[in-house]
């Protein structure tokens, strides 16, 4: 089973990387871009089948390590391999 975890800078938290990316796109003429936020995609390969409490377990992984919840939000999607 594959789980995709998305970690993004929280709303209101300055994202200098995103700003630089938006600026870069504007410089290339993509003036439609007003803002960009840069996050991370973490792909986890899990053993075994779908467990009942899988959501809670992944949430715990995010809170304990994958995201720093002071500055980052996370979300995830579970995909059958």
């Amino acid at each position, binding site marked *: 089973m594959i789980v995709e975890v998305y970690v993004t800078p929280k709303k209101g938290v*300055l994202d*200098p*990387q995103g700003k630089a990316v938006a600026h870069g796109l504007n410089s290339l003429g993509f003036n439609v871009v007003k803002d960009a936020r840069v996050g991370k995609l973490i792909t986890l390969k899990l053993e075994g089948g779908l467990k009942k409490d899988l959501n809670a377990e992944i949430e715990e992984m995010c809170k304990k*390590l994958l995201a*720093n919840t*002071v*500055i980052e939000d996370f979300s995830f999607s579970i995909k059958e391999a």
Partner: protein
Amino acid sequence: MRVAVLRFPGSNCDFDTLHVLRNVAGIDAEFVWHKERSLRGYDAAIIPGGFSYGDYLRSGAIARFSPIMKGLIRFAQSGKPVLGICNGFQILIEAGLLPGALLRNKNLKFLCQSVHLKVEMVDTPFTGLFSKGEVIELPIAHGEGNYFIDKAGLKEIEDYCQVMFRYVSKDGKLKDSDNPNGSLCSIAGVSNRSGNVVGLMPHPERRSEEIFGSTDGKKFFESLKNYLISLKTKPLSGEVFAHA
């Protein structure tokens, strides 16, 4: 009096810190490898700068899993002095020993320059020899030193006087132009609530000898020495450093 200098894979200010402790401040100090489990027998611990574990995931995030960290957390909780410099500060934050988070510098650049700092709190083991409001000059060298904390957290650290250092102008004024990395409220260093754990982005060990142009940093280590000597005459009991 024995001080531990913690070493992780990727620590790179470890020798500088050990040198200043031993040869400038005259404190008995030694390296403690991250695979050790306990800090028993030490009176204080310093986590030096560097790039522990290549800054993977987030600066300081992986170092938290080193065996020594459990020992360090117990050590800090027992009231022993702990100082984190630069990457050491990032590690203390990721380990939950200090509040807040450190973001990428506002201008996305790795900053290597001198800064002026105002010393806001002097009643900690590392700042006893400073006077409150004193302006000092120290170097910074980091890519992720942009201090952030949410509104509630900011109120809390201000209320409990946990903001230790702020980036200021040479004459001690708070200005955006003297805030090198975009830190919230120009915060350069904080302590935990009881004041025994301190972290800062600037490098005191790099300004501890005349040959480097200034000795402002030396006071951190001399303050620690004074503090440890004073403990021998009056033992620590409870929250000696409670600021509020």
